[in-house]
């Protein structure tokens, strides 16, 4: 579904953020991308929808080569890639409903969006999604009145209303408390399963990643260091990704339930 070939990103400063990364994500698979800060996780995600322009290499979404598209075609393909952000990146001064509907911007014309005259089908879908994430009664609240967990739910709705085939998720839980983090990760993985969505989830919390995803990719200095099942994350593997440290407390042990008390 998503295929990345020899993806290279070198920033103007000379920093080699990505060095010939190859990876493939099939339909419906949730992959978590781990690695130290500066390993290129955010760059990799942003090179897929070209918020960051890759230096070289190819990105395929289905049959379409994203990396070769002109501006108009790129906008159309971006509709198929929903993005969820670390600090939610909601439009703070707009309402929850407006934020959710902004996920439809790629589908409606400028004047319709400017006058907030979205098609009724979009409004229906927005209400359905808000109901699904439990924020139905918040629809008319301004985004900056919401708590962190609620905002991230709105961010998820905004990504899903695009009707995407792929979710790009950048540190969804980094600003949230442990309980809310689990709830958000569970929501994302559940929604991906419901809709057969592929997802790439950047995450710092290794245990949290192990708890919810089917596959983990470890990135270090812009190159893939590990690619495998969450259960295969041994102290040696984490040392290879992050460097020397005592990993016993970080890794989720077999038999321990991740779904403890949420």
């Amino acid at each position, binding site marked *: 579904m998503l295929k990345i070939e020899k993806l290279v990103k070198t920033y103007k400063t000379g920093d080699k953020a990505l060095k010939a990364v190859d990876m493939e994500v099939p339909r419906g698979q949730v992959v978590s991308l781990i690695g130290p800060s500066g390993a290129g996780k955010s760059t990799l995600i942003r090179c897929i929808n070209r918020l960051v322009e890759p230096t070289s290499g190819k990105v395929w979404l289905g049959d379409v080569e994203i990396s070769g598209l002109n501006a108009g075609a790129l906008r159309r393909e971006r509709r198929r890639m929903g993005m969820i952000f670390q600090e939610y990146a909601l*439009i703070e001064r707009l309402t929850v409903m407006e934020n959710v509907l902004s996920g439809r911007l790629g589908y409606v014309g400028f004047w319709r969006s400017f006058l907030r005259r979205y098609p009724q089908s979009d409004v229906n879908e927005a209400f359905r999604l808000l109901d699904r994430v439990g924020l139905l009664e918040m629809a008319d609240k301004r985004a900056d009145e919401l708590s962190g967990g609620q905002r991230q739910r709105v961010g998820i709705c905004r990504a899903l209303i695009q009707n995407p085939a792929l979710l790009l998720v950048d540190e969804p839980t980094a600003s949230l408390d442990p309980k809310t983090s689990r709830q958000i990760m569970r929501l994302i993985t559940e929604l991906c399963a419901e809709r057969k969505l592929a997802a790439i989830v950047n995450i710092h919390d290794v245990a949290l990643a192990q708890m919810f995803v089917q596959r983990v990719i470890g990135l270090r200095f812009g190159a893939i260091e590990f690619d495998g099942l969450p259960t295969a994350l041994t102290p040696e593997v984490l040392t290879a990704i992050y460097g020397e440290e005592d990993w016993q407390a970080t890794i989720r042990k077999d038999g321990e339930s991740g779904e403890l008390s949420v």
Partner: protein
Amino acid sequence: MPVFPLGDDRLGWTRRTPVARLVRWAGWLIGVAAFVWCWNRISEVTTWFFVWDAPRIAQDILARATPPRWSYMDHLWVPIWDTLNIATLGTLIALCLAVPVAFLAARNTTPSRVFVRPVALLIIVSTRSINSLIWALLLIAIIGPGVFAGIIAIAIRSIGFCAKLLYEAIEEIDPAQVEAITATGASPLQVMSYGIVPQILPAFAGIAVFRWDINIRESTVLGLVGAGGIGLQLSSSLNTLAWPQVSLILIVILLAVIISEWVSAKIRGAIV
């Protein structure tokens, strides 16, 4: 360098090095000397007789100016209305022109940093650097005396001010929100209207009201050079030494400014 050994194993610390101390002392000495010298020069070229005389003259004018000639108010309603219109219309025109200039000048929205941005900055600097009285003098020569010249003078003078504050607000927006809207596949215009405009709207409203408030004050003096408004009455009253009229006009201007400040404070409070 301010850390130095004390001889034993302890370390001493002072805020500045000895050289830095000396330089600062020299700087103060030069400053004080320059002040004293300037004071002397000013004293030499001042006719002190007029200065000692000032309180008496001021008292005399005050005596002539009171009480204000209240009946003159009949002649002031139209000019003060003109003054308000000059300020309001001038501000509106300036805002319409300042918005595109600001977007062209802001580093994160300009189409070209090399070609377009310098032009936008030049517009901002050049309109800001010339006082509205001077703009009015120029415009009176070009389009003739009257309210219209005043409106255009206020508008031109305000473009740079509004555009500068607005482009600084644009440069300070949260880029993540712009990124998020871009990622949905929105067109550049939609990115602007969803990702940028909501973020700068409070700043825009604040700038508009602030500049309107300033423009009310500026437009009261535009009449001095013939660009319409209450300044025209002020200048003719001053020329004929009609002090009771002058005092009434000053009271009217004061009231207008107080009211405009009250209104702008209310509006700003309502927005932010």
